[in-house]
């Protein structure tokens, strides 16, 4: 029995034909894979990790990110602000953190401005022209006026009466009776400056220009309202009567 009795001669012939058609050596195959620059697997590794090759690195990072995203993983990245914690995972988380940071900065900014204004004032009284700001602690009081009460603060510039009334005398004076029934006086053109003196022994409630709220002018007290057009003055007492002296310039 010959060995050829155990071989499929047709199959053997076909395989020999395929080998005869293979016109590439293993060396040629290796060179074909490595390309003209003879790149190696080490070259590929170094390229992927090369920080100077931004385009390649970015694509690599994007690929990694997409891969992790597809499997629900997380990415841990350093060099971020302290508020960027492990729980900061979504864009909503980041927006929320940024909003909180924005609010915090706004609050700090406002307080910083206030502190800058107040702290920049030297101790003692400070003046802007002829307006005294004190030591800055009374800035709130200085913009709030009250014709009643024991303290009277007002932000105003004292007028030069010589200039205001240079054209001649534009002064009027009238005493009226204030009682429990509200009465009023009116002026046309409006008065530029008014001095009210309560000459009686009971307080008088004063309303200017039809105001719905009244201010209390204590007994035996005078108040001056400057550089504010006064068209009408209403007056009344809670009980009893008093004499109110109205002086005004128009």
């Amino acid at each position, binding site marked *: 029995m010959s060995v050829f009795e155990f071989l499929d001669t047709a199959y053997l012939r076909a395989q020999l034909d395929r080998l005869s058609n293979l016109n590439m050596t293993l060396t040629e195959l290796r060179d074909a894979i490595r390309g003209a620059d003879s790149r190696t697997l080490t070259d590929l590794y170094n390229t992927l990790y090369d920080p100077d090759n931004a385009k390649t690195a970015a694509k690599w990072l994007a690929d990694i990110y997409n891969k992790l995203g597809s499997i629900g993983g997380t990415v841990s990245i350093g060099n971020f602000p302290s508020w960027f914690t492990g729980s900061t995972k979504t864009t909503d988380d980041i927006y929320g953190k940024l909003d909180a940071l924005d609010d915090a900065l706004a609050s700090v900014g406002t307080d910083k401005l206030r502190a800058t204004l107040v702290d920049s004032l030297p101790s003692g009284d400070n003046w802007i022209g002829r307006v005294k700001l004190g030591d800055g602690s009374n800035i709130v009081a200085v913009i709030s006026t009250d014709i009643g009460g024991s303290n009277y603060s007002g932000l105003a510039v004292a007028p030069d009466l010589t200039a205001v009334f240079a054209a001649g005398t534009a002064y*009027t004076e*009238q005493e009226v009776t204030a009682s429990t029934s509200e009465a009023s*006086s*009116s*002026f046309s053109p409006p008065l530029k400056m008014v001095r009210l003196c309560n000459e009686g022994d009971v307080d008088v409630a004063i309303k200017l220009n039809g105001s719905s709220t009244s201010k209390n002018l204590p007994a035996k007290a005078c108040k001056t309202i400057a550089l504010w057009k006064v068209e009408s003055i209403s007056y009344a007492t809670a009980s009893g009567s008093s004499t109110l002296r109205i002086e005004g310039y128009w």
Partner: protein
Amino acid sequence: MVGMVRVVVYRVKDTGKDARYFRSLARRATGVAPFTEVHPGLVRFRFPGDIPDDKVEQLDKAMAEVAEGVRA
């Protein structure tokens, strides 16, 4: 308002009308718009300069009509 100022005062019945109203009334009657102040029972006009008596008489009539005004 340099020079003479004529002051005309009326005792009036309280009508609720304000100084702007009476100033307009005085301007129509006299041709001059005076400074006008209205107090309870009293209206005072301050004319910037003298005005003829006949003009004041016209004002008297107007004040009598609208506020039973009588010159004080």
